[in-house]
């Protein structure tokens, strides 16, 4: 594809910006950031020498909703992310090349940018039957994934599929769809969960890596802290109704029209880590709760297997039955209560009988 590695400067020039304007931009940036007199030339130098980060974007078992989300990014615009910020060398869904021509790019990138490219994975590999449930370029996807992961700088696991497994990994998971971090162990993996992830979160992660040349700070579960350290609930605009104790009881009741909290009809906001309530969707227009529907927790592990999206207490399947904690607990407590009552009754009867016997014995 590209003969030599492209720098940011060459991209800037290609877009018709003169060298004079480029230096003006560097000077202005240094001044507005309050940096010293040498900063302008250092910024210019960085942009002239720093190569654009090559990105290989692969698709395993997925629905392409991550790509669909990504191309709708508004800040930054996806065109800027794809055409200026990164060097998207391979994306079999949207690239012009096809067949052997496309596959050759993988080998080329691997050889030329060893340890420098980012592997962005949408979807996950199914491991059952030797990976036969996802064939990509005549080979099981898992082989392609492992091959490209070997020389990657880092891996971005796009979406719930690559991060957790998502719907194809829901029970009973016939294809044994497996999240990326369970297949690749020796590379840094950034999980960007969501079904799909928010467009601006996706481009935000890409922007961070290209700007700072390092991975963003991750939380305990491998998600970027800047987008996934708080729950939907923590920044929800309906939170005051939750604290006040004002809940929607049924769809289309008076409370729903007043915009009360959706907790009682199963909103998973209190257990879902994502940026929906702050960044929102479609350029900040809305997000599920704002549209009157509870959060379904799509960026959480195994969200398909937690029972109804409309129940607060989720199902427990560990016991071979589908019941929620209250149903199980009440049955258990009821059983214990009945046992206690029965035991007390037997004790009382025995004691009376014993007393009578003792009385009989002593007389």
């Amino acid at each position, binding site marked *: 594809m590209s003969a030599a590695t492209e720098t940011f400067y060459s991209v800037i020039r290609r877009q018709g910006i003169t060298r004079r304007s480029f230096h003006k931009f560097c000077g202005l940036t240094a001044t507005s950031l309050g940096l010293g007199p040498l900063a302008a030339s250092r910024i210019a130098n960085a942009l002239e020498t720093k190569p654009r980060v090559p990105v290989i974007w692969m698709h395993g078992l997925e629905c392409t909703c991550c790509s669909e989300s990504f191309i709708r990014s508004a800040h930054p615009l996806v065109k800027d992310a794809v055409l200026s910020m990164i060097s998207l060398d391979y994306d079999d869904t949207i690239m012009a090349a096809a067949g052997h021509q496309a596959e050759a790019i993988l080998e080329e990138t691997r050889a030329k940018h060893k340890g420098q490219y980012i592997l962005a994975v949408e979807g996950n590999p199914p491991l059952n039957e030797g990976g036969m449930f996802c064939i990509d370029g005549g080979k099981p996807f898992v082989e392609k994934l492992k091959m490209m992961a070997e020389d990657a700088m880092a891996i971005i696991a796009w979406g719930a599929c690559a991060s957790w497994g998502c719907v194809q990994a829901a029970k009973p998971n016939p294809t044994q769809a497996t999240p990326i971090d369970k297949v690749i162990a020796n590379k840094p993996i950034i999980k960007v969960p969501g079904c799909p992830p928010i467009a601006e979160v996706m481009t935000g992660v890409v922007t961070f890596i290209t700007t700072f040349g390092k991975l963003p700070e991750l939380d305990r*579960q491998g998600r970027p802290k800047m987008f996934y*350290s708080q729950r939907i609930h923590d920044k929800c605009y309906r939170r*005051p109704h939750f604290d*006040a*104790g004002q809940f929607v009881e049924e769809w289309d009741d008076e409370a729903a029209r007043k915009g009360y909290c959706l907790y009682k009809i199963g909103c998973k906001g209190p257990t879902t880590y994502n940026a929906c309530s702050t960044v929102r969707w479609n350029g900040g227009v809305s997000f599920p709760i704002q549209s009157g529907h509870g959060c379904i927790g799509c960026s959480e592990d195994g969200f398909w297997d937690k029972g109804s999206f409309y129940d607060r207490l989720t199902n427990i399947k560990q016991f071979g039955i589908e019941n929620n904690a209250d149903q199980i*607990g009440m049955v258990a407590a009821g059983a214990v209560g009945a046992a206690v009552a029965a035991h007390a009754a037997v004790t009382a009867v025995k004691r009376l009988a014993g007393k009578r016997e003792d009385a009989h014995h002593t007389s």
Partner: protein
Amino acid sequence: MMDVVARPAEAEPDLSAIAADAAGEHGVGRPAVYVYEAPVRICHWVNAFSIIVLMVTGYLIATPLPSVEGEASANFVMGYIRFAHFAAGQVLAVFFLARILWAFVGNHHSRKIFYLPVHRKHFWKEVLHEIRWYAFLEREPKMYVGHNPLARTAMFTGFTLFVAFMIVTGFALYSEGAGIDSWQHKLFGWVFAVWPNSQDVHTWHHLGMWALVAFVMVHIYAAVREDIMSRQSIISSMISGERQFRD
């Protein structure tokens, strides 16, 4: 070790003790042993009260009350319920910790609910005896100064383990609101490595509540029953600290 008061099941009642007993309230024949030291008793009642508050408020957090009228800014029902839950949870955690510390300083009864001598044959034999007693297969209960081995097992699982589980999962859930940089998250965030989806932690915390409900029922029933049946004080012992043997 097991503090079994020597009292063979078939022994003749000690007539002199009974005679003395009739003479006055604290007769010579009514031996009393100091079992539960003051910190143990204080911890017991504070924990009991906290657990009741936690159960009620916890249930109401999972299944909130009907909506209140008026502006959101004028109401704080859920807020107060959650505050009570968190406050009681922290009180329980502090007194649970204090109780553990007391196990190192207090008398040997204070240590019993924190471990089981599972390696001793004697222990299992006496557990079996207690099970037979509760199954109405034994005519006479054995007498213990502290907990009987079955009660000890129940206390260890039903109280020590369950409450520890509730404290750990509780603080982990609290850390979600307190934030990723909070000490709660640093100390208890590992819970989310066990259950990556916090919905599962909620579910287990909720099940733990029901397990404690079952424990509380058994605990109170056993205490009342033993107080009557095994001729030794149980309930008043947790107030006075003394165990009296009525025979």
